[in-house]
């Protein structure tokens, strides 16, 4: 049986919440109403995305040539577009694509970036130097140009758009995580744990990871919103998803502006959807950071 060194205990204690999950959630809602609102928005979006098949009244691809540009009404809550397709159904299915792109791009980008950041920070020396340079190179590229170039090479399928968007995220996540990992590494208690004989793996898992978990989660939520916006911008420029896919960015592009006076609902609802999604993720992410970042705790 290993002796419980009080050193380890207290070192870890401030980083790990003492309360149960249920208590934490409830106190989160009470103390951070904005974050809770954000969480609610996200939950609704996820729900709609998952059950779009059931919830949507029409096939998002099905045209109705007899009633293009129909005003919002009982049969079409958000109206119809230039081909008579139901805007609400398209927005609902669009949630799938937006969330898919957002989650996957953000997750892949942040995770790969975090891994690289931790490796870089922990290994130090030449590995760190090399990885840092690579990240610098990727960072120095204007985000849109990089995404654009990748999209040009790979083509406009949704899966390629995801890759194109996740690549610029990697260096940004790596940078943040590396800084957090470095900060912990410098911390004396970690040095102490190491000198006490804790294995490398233990140091990483027990000390470094919990400390980078917070920035990682924050980055994840922040980049989610940004990923959704980048997809919209790429679609607007004609390099993202292709017609007739019901992606929000695509619905906002070019002709939506031409129809804006005649049928503003075509652009309005996808625009609101994008804004709401990014808004929700950011609200939630902000409050999450307030809670998770040990330095920001009000009571500290």
């Amino acid at each position, binding site marked *: 049986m290993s002796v419980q060194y009080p050193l380890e205990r207290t070192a870890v204690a401030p980083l790990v919440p003492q309360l149960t999950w249920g208590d934490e959630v409830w106190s989160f809602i009470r103390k951070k109403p904005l974050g809770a609102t954000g969480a609610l928005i996200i939950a609704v979006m996820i729900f709609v995305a998952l059950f779009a098949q059931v919830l949507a009244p029409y096939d998002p691809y099905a*045209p109705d040539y007899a009633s293009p540009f129909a005003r919002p009404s009982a049969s079409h809550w958000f109206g119809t577009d230039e081909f008579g397709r139901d805007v609400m159904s398209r927005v609902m299915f669009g949630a799938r694509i937006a969330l898919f792109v957002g989650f996957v791009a953000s997750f892949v980008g942040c995770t790969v970036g975090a891994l690289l950041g931790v490796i870089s920070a922990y290994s130090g020396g030449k590995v760190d130097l090399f990885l840092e340079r690579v990240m610098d190179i990727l960072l120095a590229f204007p985000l849109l140009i990089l995404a654009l170039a990748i999209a040009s090479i790979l083509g406009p399928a949704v899966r390629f758009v995801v890759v194109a968007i996740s690549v610029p995220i990697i260096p940004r996540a790596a940078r943040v995580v590396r800084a957090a990992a470095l900060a912990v590494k410098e911390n004396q208690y970690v040095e102490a744990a190491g000198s006490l004989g804790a294995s490398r793996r233990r140091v990483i898992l027990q000390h470094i990871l919990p400390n980078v978990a917070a920035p990682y989660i924050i980055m994840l939520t922040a980049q989610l919103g940004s990923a959704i916006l980048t997809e919209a911008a790429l679609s607007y420029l004609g390099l993202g998803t*292709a017609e007739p896919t019901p992606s929000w960015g695509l619905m906002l592009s070019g002709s939506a502006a031409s129809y804006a006076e005649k049928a503003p609902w075509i652009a309005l609802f996808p625009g609101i959807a994008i804004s709401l999604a990014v808004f929700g993720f950011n609200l939630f992410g902000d409050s999450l950071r307030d809670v998770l970042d040990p330095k920001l705790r009000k009571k500290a």
Partner: protein
Amino acid sequence: MPTPIRRHRTLLAALLLTLLSLTVAVPSAVQAADTPRRGGVLLAVIGADPPSLDPHQESTFANIELVAPLYSTLLQLDPYHYPKIVGDVATDWKISSDGLTYTFKIRQGIRFHDGSPLTSADVKASYDKIIFPPTGVRSVRKNAYTAVQQIDAPDPATVVFKLKFPSASLLDNLASPWNVIFPKKYLDKDPNYFKTNVVGSGPFKFKGYARGSTFEGERNPDYFIKDRPYLDGYKFFISPETSVRAAAIRSGRAYIEFRDLPSAEVESIKKQLGDKIVVQQTPMTGQWGIAINNSVKPFNDVRVRKALTLGVDRYTMAKVLAPLTGLKFVGGLMRPGSDWGMPQVDLEKLPGFGHDMDRNRAEAKRLLAEAGYPNGLKVVLKNRNVKLPYQDFAVFLIQEWRKIGVEVEHRPLETAAWFSDGQDTGNFELIVAPTVEFMDEPDQFLGRYATGSTQNWGRFSDPRVDDLFSRQARSLDHAERKKLINEMEKIVLENAYFMPGLWWSRNLVQWAKVKNYVAPPNHYTNQKLQDVWLSED
């Protein structure tokens, strides 16, 4: 002490002056409505930058709209009486009785903008460049002049075209707005000189070009037609976003858009500005279709191709797409309603042009099953990622093909890649392919269906088609030519080598103060602006 009369003297003087000025002003106000007013700069918007400034080497509106006012051509289309041909630099011409010699008289006294005189040598040099381009120099329309054997300039006022065989279309093709006359001395030094420089003899002189921003020309005071141009100059603003261009017109920052604006924008503009705006709606000598790659499976099977064209309801497509994109008229390979267009009653017998869609779709499914695809087919449709009309055209087709069990993956590509895949490498299954020319000329429109033509994106080869094409090119009898053309069309459409979609129509939007601009049936001709005037600044 001032007498009453003296006091009133100033008043009287004022009254007299006013009366006098009225007598002058009123008639001139009446005059202004009739006679063109000199002065003013025409502000226009355009949607793209030209790849280069040399019209011989380009075929995009972004080139010709900008540079046409700076140059002259040998012949031109009469803007008021399409498709009549009149001379520009040529004053009159004679065709020999065997149809093999064309002699043109060149107007004397024309000067290029650098002061040097325009002679037949310049005409010859320019046409040599078009028809017999030196290596490394592109000539986009070379193939329209295969009939020409050689060009001579026996004296400064005469140009002679000698032909290998008689050609009914030569005169029309010589009226191409793209065939501008360059000064020989620059061509001798560098045939690509005019890709980045301008020296012309047109009504306007080149003033400046800021890529991505503006293109300007100013009046040529030595233009060979007296009193022209009326305008002091013209200025194009380059803006790729359609709604931004529409907003520019609406706010009066620009007075005219020469290509096309979607009906929705036109409605809004008309609603807001009423009589201040004039909309000229013209059919266009151009169509959007689908090139099917005949050299890959399963499209080498005529049944699959026929199924694809049968599955499209072109009449509904016209109804749906017309207000969105201007694609409005159902027709074959030559423009419906034009001299060469196939009569509707014959067209309807060909696959894809019948009205009974239920029967057509059933037939399409049957053909697919017969060809080995009873459960449908997955295809990739490549497209250009320009919004109008490419995207909407594809969306409709995709929705139609779904109904016969064909699942389409839509891949819009950048212009560069689209063009490369379509024309150069043939790396596609189906690809959206437009055909837009400057007039309804069979050689121009039909050349692409001949074996080995670089414009034959579908890469098919049918010797009957080739034979009919070369026969019609040589036929001088209008009725016979028409028959040959119709037969050629029938073969192409029955075998669905190529799938025509819809013919184009456009809305040319301008402020009413832009006078005397008659919109031709395409945005390539009548761009010289020499007769255009502004009724107010």
